[in-house]
């Protein structure tokens, strides 16, 4: 399988600390990859580096053969920030249409994205008047509106009910089946089971990069939650 995103020896300093310290990984094209790790481990920082808005100290990030953040990538990448980043004083539809227009897409494409996140009924509501979960979905609609080849989603299902979560994951799987590369950060382990591959990150270093089954096997358990804890504690033992 072809590599869509390649991170090599990435060092990112935020404040006084190195948040990512010599981080390397490769993410295959046409897959859903889960990015897991404790809070503050550097997931958002890694995603920001991949979409090209993070100042990096050294190392390289290559997306679809181009350096991260370069001009040709801006048509092919979709980024969902962890906190919803949509205009609160616009309606859902206006937000989606604005982001669609940046890619020269028509309002109909925007409406399709709103439909995909289940907000058709609320599309003429101001984002400011939405519930927290609805607001994240409005933000998600703007990330998927251009049907990007690379989709970077920072905790897209937080605050969603199980039915919606399931639908959203079906959607991500469909996008990957159509050839998109999807990177999803999450804290929810039953979601991790739906990924093709998992990247496990702790304090800015990669501690596992494998399929969910292989991660479970290497931790000697059937439960991904348990495997996750085991791997994180193992490493702690080693570094301590």
């Amino acid at each position, binding site marked *: 399988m072809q590599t869509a995103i390649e991170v090599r020896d990435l060092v990112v300093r935020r404040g006084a600390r190195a948040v990512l310290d010599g981080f390397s990984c490769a993410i295959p094209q046409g897959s859903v990859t889960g990015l897991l790790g404790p809070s503050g481990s550097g997931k958002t920082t890694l995603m920001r580096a991949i979409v090209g808005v993070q100042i990096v100290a050294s190392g390289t990030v290559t997306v679809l053969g181009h350096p991260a953040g370069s001009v040709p990538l801006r048509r092919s990448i979709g980024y969902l920030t962890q906190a919803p980043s949509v205009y609160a004083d*616009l309606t859902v539809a206006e937000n989606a249409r*604005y982001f669609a227009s940046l890619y020269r897409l028509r309002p109909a494409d925007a409406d399709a994205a709103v439909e995909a996140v289940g907000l058709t009924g609320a599309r003429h509501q101001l984002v400011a008047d939405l519930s927290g979960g609805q607001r994240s979905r409005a933000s998600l609609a703007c990330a998927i509106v251009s049907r990007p080849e690379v989709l970077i989603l920072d905790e897209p299902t937080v605050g969603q009910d199980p039915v919606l979560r399931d639908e959203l994951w079906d959607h991500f799987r469909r996008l990957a089946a159509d050839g998109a590369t999807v990177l999803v950060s999450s804290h929810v382990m039953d979601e991790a089971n739906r990924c093709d591959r998992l990247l496990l990150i702790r304090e800015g270093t990669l501690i596992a990069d494998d399929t969910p089954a292989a991660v479970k096997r290497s931790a000697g358990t059937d439960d991904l939650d348990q495997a996750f804890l085991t791997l994180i504690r193992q490493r702690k033992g080693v570094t301590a």
Partner: protein
Amino acid sequence: MILASTVRRILSQLRHDPRTIAMIIVVPTLLITLIYFMYEGQPRVFDRIALTMLGVFPFIVMFLITSIAMLRERTTGTLERLFTTPVGKLDLLFGYGIAFGVAATAQAAVASGFAYWVLDMHTAGGVGLVILIAVANAVLGVALGLLCSAFARTEFQAVQFMPLVVAPQLLLCGLFVPRDDMAGWLQAISNVLPMSYSVEALTEVGMHTEPTGIMWRDLTVVVGAIVVALILGAATLRRRTA
């Protein structure tokens, strides 16, 4: 294309905020009415002060609105997200410049119309020039607002830039003390503040029936200041942040 939809987006945001629109349109008119009653019986003084204020109000209002709007783009993450899309920095800067320029034109037209036809303000030159200079001043406010928002991290800080940027320009523009009567060092400061030129341009319109060379020169200086502020603003917009 991206520029056009950005202008439309900013105007839609404004449209969903009728209270702000009302403030933009009504407040300058109210203040000029206040000046009218302050100088009742001294029409010459009213003419001079109201004319200056027609240039000053749009500057203040647009400076404030723009710095808050741009700060919001930064703090809500929309700016970060836009920088992962095909949007260019100039699309954003000109988007704000044009959108708020449109709002400023409406503001200047209403305030000037009211001053001329209800409060009976008199100028030797035409109302069109007054509006033109007022709009240039408003766009200057937009450009400086974009620039200053880069140095504010919170809305509290952004608001504090108003006295810093607006007050010296207002005090030294020649409204309170004629510029020729100021101490040399004050005059020197006044000479580098763009509002001095827009106020001088308005004064020229007040005194001469035809547009004068000084007026065109002053207007050129204001436009130059807009361009410089926009270039500096573009330099403060960074795709990558820490």
